[in-house]
């Protein structure tokens, strides 16, 4: 019984790390900037496809380095989605900052185009990546408990990315500028911060983090053109539930949702667990419309 509990807790933890990775990028884009990016899921898919491409290239030209391709893939995934986010901000988002509901529609349109683009380029069937040798197998804790290494890797990666985002937002000059602009745009502009540039960098970083999340997903499942759409509502719920503008809130909320879901999956069917979890979030949001943790900022 204890073993089952531990395994269940671990599956909750790995769901937590997945949700956290997905939500971090959106917490930056939606939480800090207030942009509703419905194409966020497709940015994740883009990261996943980049990982797939990297693996194909390594397999063909650098088979000796196959063990390390994943590390390169994560970096590439970040760079590609960072660049794409930058273009997206330049040509679309920056014209729509004052119209959040319109951002929602335009980015949904972009997400449809990207989905069809993935289908045209990579085909409709889902693609998978080869797992590097060092991630195969499991860590045998006791006779009954074994913890898969790829789950551990994703967990470690999400902790690392979270840490990096925190350092970036709260300890770097760029982070300082970002926080200043999100709190008081006009004043920040007045003291000489290039707010447009800050917006672009912030959006690009958020996109890049989505790419890393996508790269991590390839270790857990396969990637298809519709992958992004599967995650987008979940991701938004994590950010809204945690409290917009609060990164700590995002972590708390990802943890709560993951544990609630995996606990209920133990007793109910997967779809009912999903329904109850989402419904629970909506009900709690009725009582705390600002989310679990919200910054008290004078507006």
């Amino acid at each position, binding site marked *: 019984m204890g073993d089952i509990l531990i395994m269940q807790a671990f599956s909750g933890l790995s769901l937590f790390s997945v949700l956290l990775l997905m939500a971090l990028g959106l917490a930056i884009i939606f939480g800090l900037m*207030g942009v509703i990016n419905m194409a966020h899921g497709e940015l994740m898919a883009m990261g996943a496809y980049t990982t797939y491409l990297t693996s194909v290239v390594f397999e063909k030209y650098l088979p000796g380095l196959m063990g390390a391709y994943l590390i390169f893939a994560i970096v590439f995934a970040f760079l590609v989605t960072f660049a794409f986010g930058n273009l997206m901000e330049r040509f679309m988002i920056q014209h729509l900052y004052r119209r959040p509901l319109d951002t929602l529609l335009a980015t949904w349109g*972009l997400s449809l185009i990207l989905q069809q683009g993935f289908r045209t380029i990579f085909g409709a069937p889902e693609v998978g990546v080869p797992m590097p040798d060092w991630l195969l197998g499991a860590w045998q804790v006791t006779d009954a408990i074994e913890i898969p290494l790829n789950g551990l890797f994703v967990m470690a990666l999400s902790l690392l990315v979270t840490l990096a985002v925190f350092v970036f937002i709260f300890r770097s000059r760029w982070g300082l500028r970002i926080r200043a602009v999100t709190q008081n745009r006009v004043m920040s502009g007045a003291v000489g911060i290039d707010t447009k540039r800050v917006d672009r960098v912030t959006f690009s970083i958020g996109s890049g983090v989505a790419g890393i999340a996508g790269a991590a997903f390839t270790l857990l499942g396969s990637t298809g053109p519709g992958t992004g759409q599967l995650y987008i509502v979940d991701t938004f719920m994590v950010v809204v539930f945690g409290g917009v503008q609060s990164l700590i809130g995002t972590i708390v909320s990802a943890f709560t949702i993951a544990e609630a879901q995996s606990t209920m999956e133990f007793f109910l069917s997967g779809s009912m667990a999903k329904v109850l979890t989402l419904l629970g979030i909506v009900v709690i949001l009725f009582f705390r419309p600002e989310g679990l943790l919200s910054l008290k900022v004078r507006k």
Partner: protein
Amino acid sequence: MLERLFQFAGGRRDLVNLLLLGALLLVVMPLVLDSFRLNLAGKYLSFAFVAVGLVLCWGYGGILSLGQGIFFGLGGYLMAMFLKLESSGAELPDFMVWNSLESLPAFWQPFHSFGFTLLAIFVVPTLLAWLIGAAMFKRRVGGVYFAIITQALAWILSILFIGQQGLTGGINGITNFSTLLGWDLYSESAKLTLYYVNAALLIGVLLASRFILDSRLGKLLVAVRDKEDRVRFSGFDVSNFKIFVFCVAALFSAIGGAMFTLQVGLISPSLMGIVPSIEMVVFAAVGGRYSVIGAVYGTLLVSYGKTFLSENFPELWLYFIGALFIAVVMVFPNGLAGLVDNLRQRLRPRGRALPVTAVAEEARA
């Protein structure tokens, strides 16, 4: 008398527009289209109910619901429950048998009655909308949050309907029924009649929206959209206006859903989830988010575009609708109605009142 009529329809121009649309729907389309295409048009027009509702609550009320599929689906399911029971006669509906249910679930029982079904189509979605609206707007949840939460609700409901196969028919939804009160739904005359009923109901819905928008309540609604706090400080309970308009939009959607079931002969979760809900927002956006009549044209155009493209170039459809989403937001935010207004403005530059889209634009600026 004539003046009163103009006033009711929202001025001379709107009356002309309404008459044009009425002529198109009631005279031109039945004459031009064969019965298959007309049935298709009827299907599209059942989506137009949702789009008109969205113009009211999104364009005029400023609240974007990404969950209108919920109400459309509910209306469709409630109608389908009655039709299914009628076609099953004394036996258990087939999908319940497949899911080894022993007897009819209690909440299906009242749907033996047509009167009750009609009442339910009017009451259930409206009540749900009231519940959602009251819970959200009384807590001053609005804008983006409302959009995301309604989207989540649409998702929840479609997962629930897919999951509860024995009660809802699961992913296939409710299908296989052919008569309404003994009347063969697939006969040519029935199809034609249903089309006319649908078109007439739609025009009724348009008149009702005009009536709401021209009333004091409609003006307050616009005021709430543009400067919510000022209206609140003037002593109004702002949330009530929003709840009301959200309920009206839900009711319209439910009527559309019921008409959809009657004309298409099925209802399934694929019509109530996130994707259809957002598609219906595009119908409203393309038609013009401040124009109830534009919403009907938008629905017809985009739906025909979808059918045409997916018949001829299936891989282009998503590119097309994606580009349309982006264009409608970035290039012509007031949709077709806005383009028509601009044209009118250019033709008659002086001495005319600003059309409603232009007024809304001024208010936004």
